[in-house]
């Protein structure tokens, strides 16, 4: 068990005024097994009422629209979360987590990698995920900027470089090919910088958090924000703008352990 203080801020500056702005923000820590929100403060800028919604994955969204002209948009979420082991019981995992998505489809490169690690597959999802993780790390290096939002697992592997999004997509692709349920997680970890992504694999009636980028299981230093089939389901900020011109986004995140 640990108690973590966090502070997340995302802001966008527009080169031209935005006249109408619809937004859906997925940036609030989940209340779930082994993760409890002790305290939370949320605000959006320009100031607006907070409307909450949910998606099919059980994630929390802040949604609404702003119809006053603005040159800047932002959200701040601060609070305290008590965390624990990333092992979540689930008696009925949704079968969608077993099927490939656009980001996680195994084509030539992934199939090749899969067949190399296939002998290491066991019934134990965690053990298999850690074996896959080692194989992934032998084939790609961490390099920020090497890939983009739209990069698929196959493309990242082919490139041999990527960031947490790519490590996670590749691991998910391999796990699903091996017949495991696997899902994408967006969250925060102790330290400063940006949000992080990792994977949960289903084994023995529970979801287990695995962080392929750091080659270790997710633990009490990790805070879950959202889960989904892949990156596309966990977008932190989805917006629809009238006006706006060019956008510059800045993100600041700080998580400290008490």
């Amino acid at each position, binding site marked *: 068990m640990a108690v973590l203080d966090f502070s997340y801020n995302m802001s966008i500056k527009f080169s031209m005024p935005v006249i109408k702005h619809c937004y*859906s923000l997925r940036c609030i820590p989940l209340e779930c097994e082994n993760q409890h929100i002790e305290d939370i403060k949320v605000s959006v800028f320009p100031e607006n009422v907070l*409307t909450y*919604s949910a*998606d099919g*994955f059980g994630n929390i*969204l802040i949604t*609404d629209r702003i119809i006053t002209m603005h040159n800047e948009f932002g959200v701040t979420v601060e609070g305290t979360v008590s965390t624990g082991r990333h092992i979540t019981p689930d008696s009925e995992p949704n079968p969608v987590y077993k099927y490939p998505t656009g980001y996680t489809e195994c084509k030539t490169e992934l199939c090749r990698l899969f067949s190399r690690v296939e002998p290491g597959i066991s019934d134990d999802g965690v053990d298999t995920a850690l074996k896959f993780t080692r194989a992934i790390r032998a084939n790609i290096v961490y390099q920020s900027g090497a890939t983009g939002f739209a990069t698929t697992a196959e493309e990242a592997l082919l490139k041999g470089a990527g960031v947490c999004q790519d490590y996670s997509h590749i691991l998910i692709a391999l796990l699903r090919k091996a017949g495991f349920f696997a899902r994408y997680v967006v969250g925060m970890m102790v330290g400063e910088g940006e949000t992080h992504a990792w994977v949960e694999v289903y084994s023995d009636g529970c979801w287990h958090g695995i962080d392929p980028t750091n080659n270790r299981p997710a633990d009490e230093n990790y805070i879950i924000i959202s889960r989904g089939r892949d990156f596309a389901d966990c977008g932190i900020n989805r917006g629809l703008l009238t006006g706006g011109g060019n956008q510059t986004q800045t993100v600041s995140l700080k998580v400290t352990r008490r």
Partner: protein
Amino acid sequence: MYGLIEHTDEINRLLARYGVKFGIYKNNVFNERLFPFDTVPRILSADEFGFLSRGLRQRVTALNMFLNDIYTAKRIVKDKVIPEEFVYGGAGYMMECEGAVPPKGIFCHISGIDLVQGSDMRWYVLEDNLRIPSGASYPMIARELCRRASPDTFRANSVVDNRNYGELLKKVLDYSNCGGINVVLTPGRFNSAFFEHTYLAEKTGSVFAMPQDLFVEGNVLYYSEYSGRRQRVGAVYRRISDDFLDPMTFRADSLLGVPHIMDAYRAGNTAIVNAPGNSVADDKGIYYYVPAMIKYYLGEDAILSNAPTYLPFYESDRKYVLENISRLVIKDVAESGGYGVVFGSELSLEQIYELKKLISKQPRRFIAQEVISFNNLRVFENGVPGERKADLRAFVLMGEETVVWQSGLTRFAKDADSFIVNSSQGGGFKDTWVLSR
């Protein structure tokens, strides 16, 4: 009835003037086409309609239960009545709708079930259309014109009046309404059924809206009037497909949708008619399992038969399909509107070889059906009698009660030797008479 035939040209002229048209996109070009009307109706006796009605209500009741189940408990998959991958491996299941139960548990407010009558006079269900089935307005307006052209015909025959469709539909909207006005939402005039959208708005007393007339604030859907005054919307009869319905949830590039309408729906503040997510139930692969679904949810045998269908997914069916491909119809499950339908008998040897290879490689993608020997219907072409293959789209409406509209759209093929009756493939339509005795 001969009183009607002599008015054929006149009625078609009036239909054209009223704008009763069908739009077709081909190679990204939009063409409007008149939907030729043949005055000789399809006639269903009271008994025959009673039988169809029982079967259709049973079928739609089971399909609606299936949708409630799939987006919540998933019992039918856990009990292995339907293989998991037919639900989750295709494009029909929409994760965005997971856990979202519509007002009053109704997903299929309006179902268009396509049937054909075989030469053995048995009825077979060919397709369940649970997304945005169109076409009810055609027999409505054609009946109106026929009654005017030849009132004697309707005096002499005891035909059930079909002009109550608007009232039936209004009841459905009112029953699901979460508080506020009813709205018919059209994507715009380049939709193939634009005429129908305006017509149904008028007949149901609903407000006719374009996407920009609606907005969501605080999870509530509103209609904005010209004056700027807003009115709360409790039910939307949307004629926009799920993909384009809400750019915040589905396709982000949709300009036809209403941002956040899914949030208003999830919050229980508005009914979406038909509910989003129905694509999982009218998939051609799922069609195969409808009789099993009826048995599973209702404990009854299906009253209406499916056309004999094979799923290459099952090894024994695959073997049968590969051996008999030249006399079967092969359908691509991802396509609709008469596209992706191939008759084995019309293929060259090379094409058969290619198709067999494709089926072996992607068995889940196809279904195969026996070619049903149709009971042809009589048509008059420039006053000369002929025969055409025809189907019947029956409209089933689910509100407080589930009812089958006592009429339907009878579509017939363009040419005497064609089997495809979809309006998007050419062809015309007839009125469907249900007799009161």
